[in-house]
């Protein structure tokens, strides 16, 4: 998030797009709801499903999955045409406006409504006016923007809109991606990514290479070649280029798209190590399994969606003979001839501070009593509540002229329904934690496919009936939940349930820049099972 959770009361309006906030980030969802219901703030919701927030929206735009760019361009088109944008901000703080303007010309409400499957184009203009008039307006998005072949472009369109309106660099505004895992922000900050060292310093740089060789006192010639991303690595395994895989606390067999393909890769690998807390679907394919600590057994730091670094304390004694994840890695490095001598998470953090400029001013002592959000360059720095104040971190805010591009797979007579996937309130990701939590599992213990009454009637399917959902990649049996939540011709399946795994169905098409898979749209067919 460019901005902070505690700024939610400062926003006069919200655009929530591609985020089922009340189920996936419920605490933030409630905060937004409170502003809208109690304090009469404005709300525009854009989603293929009639999510809970849609109930409270001034305008709800129920778009076809995969058409975010069109709708965002459409909103920007109206804002430009009606001169509702912040001209001073755009000319003083941004670049690329003229080109953007040219591209936006054709995204009239009528054109956009046709792409997005909206009946009433005037709603787009209405939404644009609401968003432009209320200042500051905060944009919140989640995987419903990013998990597309055009994910990066979707994010750029979000930034375009907020730059046009002058909503970046002010309290209560911002482009606010809601991060879906407790430390996904931190894992990125720490350089657990194929192309960057900690603090997003590119690996393809001789300067950075020299810097880290020095910092890590390593004789090894650090590679300047960016590595593989998850889906690329699995493809590499099938091709025979990747021989060994070390999985720390992840469950790709459940979480990655096109499960059949993932399993093929796991079977093809010569050597697989899994370090986890449970025997996951992925661990089944391991040659060696290391038992790690669960979160309540650990000490260390995590960074939340608003860049706030927080301390975790040990609550319970560790299970059996399990070990801290950092200790296992340290002992392995020692055996491979590298003399790491870490004695605690805190010692590792002290090293992190030295090589991660945005974390340099953060200490365990400060975290015990202070709220600190990175960047925090030195110990006297209070941390950063919101980014891009006065000027963008790159100098001028870059507006990008982006054209709408369709998803990888379109519906056709054989696979006529759009399938989209996601999470539900009671469960999390691949279920390793939530499905082993008694109360959560008791509350929801089986998967379902949400289908619109329209499809239910077309295929003669009753609520609660077992149906078959298939794509070109696989097929699952699953209970139908007939509801008007999804748009007609759209089906939704959560991906938490191994016994009816949504990712048997999803497509492994990737965004060319960031390699995110297109989980949010593929073509499927729904069939009644005749018993």
């Amino acid at each position: 998030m460019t901005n902070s959770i505690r700024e939610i009361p400062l926003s006069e309006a919200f655009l929530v797009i591609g985020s089922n906030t009340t189920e996936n980030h419920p605490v933030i969802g409630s905060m937004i709801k409170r502003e809208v219901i109690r304090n009469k703030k404005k709300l525009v919701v854009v989603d293929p499903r009639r999510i809970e927030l849609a109930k409270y929206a001034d305008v709800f735009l129920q778009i076809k999955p995969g058409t975010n760019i069109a709708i965002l361009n459409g909103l920007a088109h109206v804002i430009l045409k009606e001169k509702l944008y912040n001209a001073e901000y755009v000319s003083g703080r941004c670049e690329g406006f003229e080109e953007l303007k040219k591209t936006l010309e054709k995204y009239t409400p009528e054109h956009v409504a046709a792409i997005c499957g909206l009946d009433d184009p005037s709603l787009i203009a209405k939404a644009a006016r609401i968003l432009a008039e209320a200042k500051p307006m905060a944009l919140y998005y989640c995987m419903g923007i990013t998990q597309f072949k055009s994910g990066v472009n979707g994010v750029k369109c979000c930034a375009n809109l907020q730059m046009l309106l002058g909503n970046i660099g002010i309290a209560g505004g911002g482009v606010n991606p809601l991060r879906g895992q407790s430390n996904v922000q931190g894992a990125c900050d720490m350089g657990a990514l194929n192309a960057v060292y900690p603090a997003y310093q590119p690996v393809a740089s001789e300067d950075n290479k020299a810097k880290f060789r020095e910092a890590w006192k390593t004789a090894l010639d650090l590679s300047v070649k960016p590595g593989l991303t998850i889906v690329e690595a699995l493809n590499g395994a099938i091709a025979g280029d990747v021989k060994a895989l070390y999985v720390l606390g992840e469950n790709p067999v459940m979480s990655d798209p096109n499960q059949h393909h993932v399993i093929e890769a796991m079977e093809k690998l010569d050597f697989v190590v899994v370090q986890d807390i449970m025997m996951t679907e992925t661990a089944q394919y391991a040659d060696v399994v290391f038992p790690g600590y669960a979160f309540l057994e650990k000490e260390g730091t995590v960074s939340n969606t608003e860049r706030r670094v927080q301390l975790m304390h040990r609550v319970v004694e560790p299970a059996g003979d399990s070990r801290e994840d950092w200790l296992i890695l340290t002992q392995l490095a020692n055996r491979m001839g590298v003399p790491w001598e870490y004695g605690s998470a805190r010692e590792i953090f002290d090293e992190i501070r030295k090589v991660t400029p945005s974390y340099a001013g953060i200490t365990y002592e400060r975290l015990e009593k202070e709220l600190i959000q990175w960047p925090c360059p030195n110990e006297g720095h209070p941390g950063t509540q919101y980014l891009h104040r006065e000027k963008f971190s790159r100098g001028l805010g870059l507006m990008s002229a982006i054209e709408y591009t369709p998803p990888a797979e379109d519906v056709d007579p054989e696979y006529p329904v759009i399938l989209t996937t996601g999470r539900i309130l009671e469960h999390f990701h691949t279920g390793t934690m939530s499905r082993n939590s008694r109360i959560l599992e008791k509350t929801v213990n089986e998967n379902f496919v949400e289908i619109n009454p329209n499809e239910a009637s077309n295929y003669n399917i009753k609520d609660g009936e077992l149906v078959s959902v298939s794509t070109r990649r696989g097929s699952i049996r699953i209970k139908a939940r007939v509801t008007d939540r999804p748009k007609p011709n759209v089906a939704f399946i959560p991906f938490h349930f191994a016994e009816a795994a949504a990712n048997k169905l999803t497509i492994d098409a990737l965004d060319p820049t960031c390699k995110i898979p297109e989980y949010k749209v593929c073509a499927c067919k729904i069939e009644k099972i005749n018993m």
Partner: protein
Amino acid sequence: MESIQLTINGKQLAGHRGQTILEVAGENNIDIPHLCYHPRISKTGACRICLVRVNGTMLKTACTEPVIADMDVVTEDAEISQIRTGLLEMLLSEGCHNCLYCEWNGECELQRLCQKYDVQEPSGVFKNRERTVDTESSNGLRRNENRCILCGRCVKACGEIQMQGVWNFTGRGSSTTLTSDMFAKLGDSSCVMCGTCVQLCPTGALSFQTVLGRGQAWDLKKETSVCIYCGVGCQIDFYTNKEGQLVKAIGNENGPNEGHLCVKGRFGFDFVQSDKRLTKPLIKKNGKFEEASWDEALDLVSSKLTEIKSKSGPDSIMAFSSAKCTNEENYLMQKFMRAVIGTNNVDHCARL
């Protein structure tokens, strides 16, 4: 903000316009007993326990009375104590408050006040009505309205924090009771089990399914950590009993969540102590996992990785790091791949 000078219990204090007597007193560590007031919800002024004397004459509820210049407040005198005792007696006699059977024994705000004011067993003036006991319909929450004092904190927790509006009052006067949606059982209502009503309940009227039978309140140990689920980063106070067993999760007010939690943060913690946890290193031999010592498992992994690295090059090895692990662990994993293996083949589920 305009500063306001006032006196509480003879002490010269400063507050500002818009603050209540209770808020100014709280900031200055002056305790004014209260039950319906809670800082996270709007002011109710229903229980009257916080009555204080203003300017030597009037009795006002400190939780709703705004401070004004030169106000002279006395928080306790003989008459106030007598009124509070009377109010507490009435609250007790309306319900069935037997601490012996209550899982919130030791944490109950009503109990604390009754002890402070030496309230004796209810005289039985009021007829003790049997009210709703629903300890089973909800997977997460228990409700025993015989312990309810109708303070309304739960109604406001649900209506003002979770914004779900499940709880409300029904009936009038002495037949007022709580209701979840339209008389539905809690488990059939639109409750999303965030548990905020329980966290704010001053008595044992609302409780968690995880608490009963897991130790006495005074034996529980509290430690703060961060929720493991989504990226909001809610701070949670986890309570464990003498046996080290996890008992309950309470939202910490200092976190980005401001005390609030969702159903996963509230109830999704017992997997940590599940008997499905891996407790020993495992090595697959002839297609089957066998328990191994750490030395054996670490030696095997280090020799296999070294062998593959020398035979097929460092880029033939890939690591998936984890968005569930700490910064320290992610840092070490990327350092391990870059500085020990010699490849940038490291990624995690940021995109998944």
